[in-house]
């Protein structure tokens, strides 16, 4: 794609637009948003998405609790977030309007399916008066469209039942938005063929609704709402639009492939991690075994059993599941076997907000086990980077024979963004070495095997069952340094506890140094981890554009920290740590480095917007100036 396209008809050029599709859980809003995104990706825009849906599969129809929304920002330049306030809200019913109107920018555009604004739906949404008639939308541009009526009209001779015809109305909305923002039609038409192929009437109805929506924009005097967002000038390469869970799954497959070692996933379905189980279960030809266990504990247990057998054992879950896996993670720490525990964080505690994002499991990852039980922590920060984070987690687990916690979150898991695909040959090889020989000599001069004899990195040999001559027993009881025999000696326990800590600390020598993004000479440094990357990056850019200096350090390794982190932090007058929790990283930084890391926090089940972080940073920046 190039950026020299001629304007399309009367379409006005804009740099970016933020669209939010909102409707009932059954209205197909996730699909609609996903298709708008897919067409925009193929068109060459940069983009970022925020699917925002309820935990219920079908909440009571027409209610506020049942509203499912999908926000996407598309742009002609590089962006890092799905945008702050939407420019356009598509509201398929009164509940969607009521629930999401507050997010819309001042003076933004609302497109409503006026057919859904009957008395019953208005009442379900808690409206006493019809907002389309009572003047409450005066500050917005409101486009009322009879989507249901028009969709049924075009589908009536296509052989679909009226109920199925009505279900195509989301494609009407998609067609209309596709006209408004000059999206190519082919990707969506192709997608309908592929998705509903064989069911001719459904294909015809969806296509007819899509075309009708498009034609509606063209004919119904909406010309002042006709825009185009040209392709973004991104780095040269081949791109795909990827969400975090898919990228993470592929990263696991790539890591196992580069390690020439089979991958074993033990998992129990849990939102928002299940899609990793779904994705990995498709790729058995890569030697991937997936085991849907009876519970979270069995899932991690089976993964650890597979690791003991020489596979790369993985378990995927979300917060409540990590709590259940804690004891087995402790065993893995004691056994010193590779294991990757993937936590797709969500709002907690307890069942909390299953479909909403939060990053409040850092302390659990760090300390959530009994005993002194350190484990490395790797955190992903954007959808495509979940791929590399997964590879890094596997690399550390395999090389250092330790469980590794890989933290992602619901926002990364389901959010999409373009990914410049790597050349697979450039991905690092991962060396896997199993012990094959005795490593010690006994009093009689015979070779024997000591399972806890360590190398220079304090790493013990990985001697897998099936290896002749290396039979040995390991377990959760404290074992003697070297021989691995059960030992209750006080001195030995102190030694082993120290070693378990030291061997994790030593990994700091083998991870990338922390880097400053932005102004190294700034007095203020923002330190982030995880999915806040997009919002912090966006906020920092805006502040720099406004003449401020801002440094940004984004941590991908949270245990151990990069070895230069303390010096870097101490070089700034002010350290600000925005987090989707109540300040967990800031506490770790204060404890580790005695720096006055100030916390800003958000726990609303929603990611930070760039605007929120910009405002918070601005307070500190203006204080500094005053």
């Amino acid at each position, binding site marked *: 794609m190039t950026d020299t396209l001629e304007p399309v008809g009367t379409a006005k050029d804009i740099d970016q637009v933020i669209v939010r599709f909102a409707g009932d859980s059954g209205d197909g809003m996730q699909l609609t948003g996903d298709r708008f995104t897919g067409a925009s990706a193929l068109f060459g825009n940069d983009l970022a998405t925020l699917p925002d849906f309820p935990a219920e599969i079908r909440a009571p129809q027409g209610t506020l609790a049942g509203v499912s929304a999908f926000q996407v920002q598309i742009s002609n330049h590089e962006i890092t977030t799905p945008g702050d306030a939407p420019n356009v809200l598509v509201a398929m019913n009164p509940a969607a309007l009521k629930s999401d109107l507050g997010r819309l920018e001042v003076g933004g555009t609302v497109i409503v399916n006026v057919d859904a604004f009957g008395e019953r739906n208005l009442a379900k949404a808690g409206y006493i008066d019809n907002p389309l008639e009572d003047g409450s939308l005066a500050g917005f541009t409101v486009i009322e469209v009879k989507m249901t009526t028009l969709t049924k009209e075009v589908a009536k001779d296509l052989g679909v039942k009226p109920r199925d015809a009505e279900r195509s109305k989301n494609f009407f909305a998609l067609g209309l938005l596709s006209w408004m923002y000059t999206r190519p039609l082919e990707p969506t038409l192709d997608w309908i063929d592929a998705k509903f192929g064989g069911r001719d009437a459904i294909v015809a109805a969806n296509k007819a609704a899509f075309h009708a929506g498009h034609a509606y924009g063209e004919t119904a005097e909406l010309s002042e709402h006709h825009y185009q967002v040209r392709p973004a000038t991104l780095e040269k390469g081949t791109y795909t639009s990827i969400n975090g869970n898919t990228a993470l799954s592929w990263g696991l497959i790539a890591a196992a492939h580069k390690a020439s070692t089979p991958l074993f996933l033990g998992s129990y379905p849990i939102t928002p991690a299940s899609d990793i189980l779904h994705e990995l279960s498709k790729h058995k030809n890569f030697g991937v075994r997936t085991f849907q266990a009876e519970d979270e504990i069995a899932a991690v247990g089976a993964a650890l059993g597979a690791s003991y057998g020489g596979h790369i054992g993985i378990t995927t879950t979300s917060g409540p599941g990590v709590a259940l896996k804690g004891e087995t993670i402790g065993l893995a720490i004691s056994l010193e076997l590779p294991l990757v525990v993937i936590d797709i964080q969500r709002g907690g505690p307890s069942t909390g907000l299953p479909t909403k994002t939060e990053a409040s499991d850092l302390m659990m990852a760090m300390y959530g086990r009994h005993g002194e039980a350190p484990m490395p922590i790797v955190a992903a920060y954007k959808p495509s980077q979940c791929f590399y984070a997964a590879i890094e987690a596997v690399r550390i687990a395999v090389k250092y024979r330790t469980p590794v916690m890989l933290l992602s979150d619901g926002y990364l898991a389901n959010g999409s963004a373009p990914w410049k695909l790597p050349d697979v040959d450039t991905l690092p090889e991962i060396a896997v070495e199993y012990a094959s020989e005795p490593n010690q000599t006994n009093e009689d001069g015979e070779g024997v095997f000591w399972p806890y004899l360590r190398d220079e990195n304090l790493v013990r040999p990985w001697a897998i069952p099936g290896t002749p001559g290396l039979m040995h*027993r390991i377990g*959760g009881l404290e074992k003697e340094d070297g021989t691995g025999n059960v030992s209750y000696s006080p001195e030995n326990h102190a030694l082993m506890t120290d070693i378990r800590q030291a061997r994790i600390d030593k990994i700091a020598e083998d991870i990338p140094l922390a880097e400053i993004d932005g102004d190294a000479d700034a007095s203020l440094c923002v330190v982030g981890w995880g999915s806040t990357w997009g919002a912090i990056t966006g906020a920092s850019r805006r502040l720099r554009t406004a003449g401020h200096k801002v440094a940004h350090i984004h941590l991908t390794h949270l245990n151990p920290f990069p070895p230069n982190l303390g010096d870097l932090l101490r070089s700034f007058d002010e350290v600000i740590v925005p987090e989707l929790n109540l300040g967990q990283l800031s506490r770790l930084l204060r404890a580790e480095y005695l720096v006055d890391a100030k916390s800003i926090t958000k726990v609303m089940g929603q990611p930070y917007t760039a605007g929120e972080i910009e405002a918070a940073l601005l307070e500190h920046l203006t204080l500094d100036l005053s």
Partner: protein
Amino acid sequence: MTNTTQNPATSNNLLAEKDGVPATTKADWSSDQEVRWCPGCGDYSILTAVQMMMPDLGVRRENTVFISGIGCAARFPYYMNTYGMHSIHGRSPAIASGLAIARPDLDVWVVGGDGDMLSIGGNHLIHALRRNVNIKILLFNNQIYGLTKGQYSPTSEPGKVTKSSPFGSLDHPFNPVSLALGAEASFVARTHDMDRKHMQATFARAHAHDGAALVEVFQNCNVFNDGAFDKITKKANRDAMLIDLRHGEPIRFGADREHGVVLDAAGGAVIVNVAEVGEAALLVHDETHPDPAVAFALSRLASNPEMPTPMGVFRAFDREEYTAASEAQMATAKDTDGEPDLRSLLHSLPTWDV
């Protein structure tokens, strides 16, 4: 693998040595670790039976793994000169399942007690059995918590007075064989720690079975529940109190084999006097029956170890083993999807060039 039809109590040469596997002795299967069970514990005789049986199986030590949970029985792997893992309370069937699925070339054994397997680990046990993963589970049932010093267990009899039940236990106990059959385990057997040959033969049958196997071993805890099984397992009592299950034969027991088992109209197993009903009326034991209902009825004959109790193989039914099915899916995927190609994977969603 097919099921044998020999009586476990009399078949000592169940398996021929496999080609190329060096002959071993009991000593080869014993680790250098000092055994730390209480003197007189039934676990010793079970350990001896296993160590004596292993040379007969014709398998290699390095391909043999013992996995246990927590409890007295769970110390077992430390004493075997094989690969072994002493894991977490209750979780050994799950860990063993992962190992067995990842490594079909291994013999994976699981050892645990009644608390480990039926209380904290009950969930993993039933799921491992229903899945039919190729693991061999030895459940040492002593009807008490030993390592925590004498609380009632999920197999303790109702009313049992222990440290945690000074007024008598209120719990209704599990019958491990009934539980396993209810989970449709493909192999279920029972043996006891007073009869080493029966143990060896029963364990060997479990090993020969292709799928998950559960063997309940009545095991005496001489410290906290001494003599729990005396009324049936003492030599003098065995003829009258142990019902020897032999595949293909009418079920009879007693010093003169004067008692027998019949099914009543409701499908329940009932003990009868053979002289009264005639041998033709007796239930012929069929361990290979696809429906576990008859085996279940047999498991209900005794609700405590003071009643005539069936011993031997209740069920040895041939159904698809999980790992074999899993490997078949892997092979099919290779045929269908071809050799793994990372680049194709990464380009499998719509792409565009900039």
